């Protein structure tokens, strides 16, 4: 099989990471309160530490999953191993099916799947954070509740990276790209808020695109599942 299929699947996995909404949502609130409480410079610094925390968390989970998968297979993961493909693809398809119904809660705004108590805790934390280390920890923690949706994506990305190339440098570069894509929306929000736009404008745009995100991410999950079955089982 050519390198085309794993590269396509990896790009789709990156898109999922870029479009998930929990970390950007928490970051949006955090930035808003930071700009409200601190000087622009301090708020900007705190935001960067939040982004660093989110990045660290993503990197750690990815490295952990990559290492686990590498240790399971001495050789690069063989995708002729149908059972593994069926399990991963089945999970992706299952998430794709349930995603539109459970990721966003019903009602106005962009209430996410997390419990209201946790959402309130995040809201409180974003208000009271004063130090950069707290911002780092909040960034680290903010992406963890989303692991239920991201762990299969991490697994898919790790297996596809192993499949694309045997060279460790290439793998490392692809892994880095995958990790960095998670913070792309955070950097976009940071730059947008730094340029003077506010929470109201960004939240209105999130609300406006809610349905699109719901359908788009669901479709990508389904597509990855289908592609993995096609290229892993029928056209290995």
């Amino acid at each position, binding site marked *: 099989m050519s390198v085309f299929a794993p590269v396509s699947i990896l790009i789709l996995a990156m898109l999922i990471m870029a479009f998930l909404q929990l970390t950007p949502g928490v970051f949006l609130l955090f930035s808003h309160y930071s700009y409200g409480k601190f000087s622009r410079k301090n708020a900007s610094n705190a935001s960067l530490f939040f982004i660093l925390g989110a990045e660290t968390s993503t990197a750690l989970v990815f490295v952990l999953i990559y290492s686990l998968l590498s240790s399971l297979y001495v050789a690069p993961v063989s995708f002729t191993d149908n059972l593994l493909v069926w399990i991963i693809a089945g999970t992706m398809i299952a998430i794709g099916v349930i995603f539109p119904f459970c990721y966003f809660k019903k009602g106005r705004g*962009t209430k996410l799947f997390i419990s209201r108590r946790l*959402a309130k805790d*995040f*809201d409180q934390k974003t208000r009271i954070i004063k130090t950069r280390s707290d911002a780092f920890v909040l960034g680290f923690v903010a992406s963890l509740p989303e692991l239920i949706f991201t762990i299969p994506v991490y697994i898919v990305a790790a297996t596809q990276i192993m499949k694309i190339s045997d060279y460790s440098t290439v793998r490392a570069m692809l892994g880095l790209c995958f990790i960095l894509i998670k913070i792309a929306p955070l950097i976009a929000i940071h730059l947008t808020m730094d340029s003077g736009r*506010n929470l*109201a404008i960004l939240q209105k745009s*999130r609300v406006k695109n809610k349905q699109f995100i719901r359908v788009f991410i669901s479709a990508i999950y389904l597509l990855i599942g289908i592609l993995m079955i096609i290229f892993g089982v029928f056209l290995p």
Partner: protein
Amino acid sequence: MSILDTKLVIRDLKIDAKAIGIPAGAAKAFIEKAVNDATKSLSSKTIVTDKDLVRAVHKELKKYNADLAYVYENRDTII
């Protein structure tokens, strides 16, 4: 809920206003006026809930700054 909890509301609104980029002086003046007007409009009610207060303050804030009113109304629906 006590309708007299307006100090906290005003404090939060001032933070929101600064984040949105409203000058502090102007924000202080219209936020206090909006919250006072909102509490006045609720004074005839025997029971006032959080939602009533949010709705009333939002309605008053909208007269002065739509973005601040939007942020105040939607703060619980972002995540």
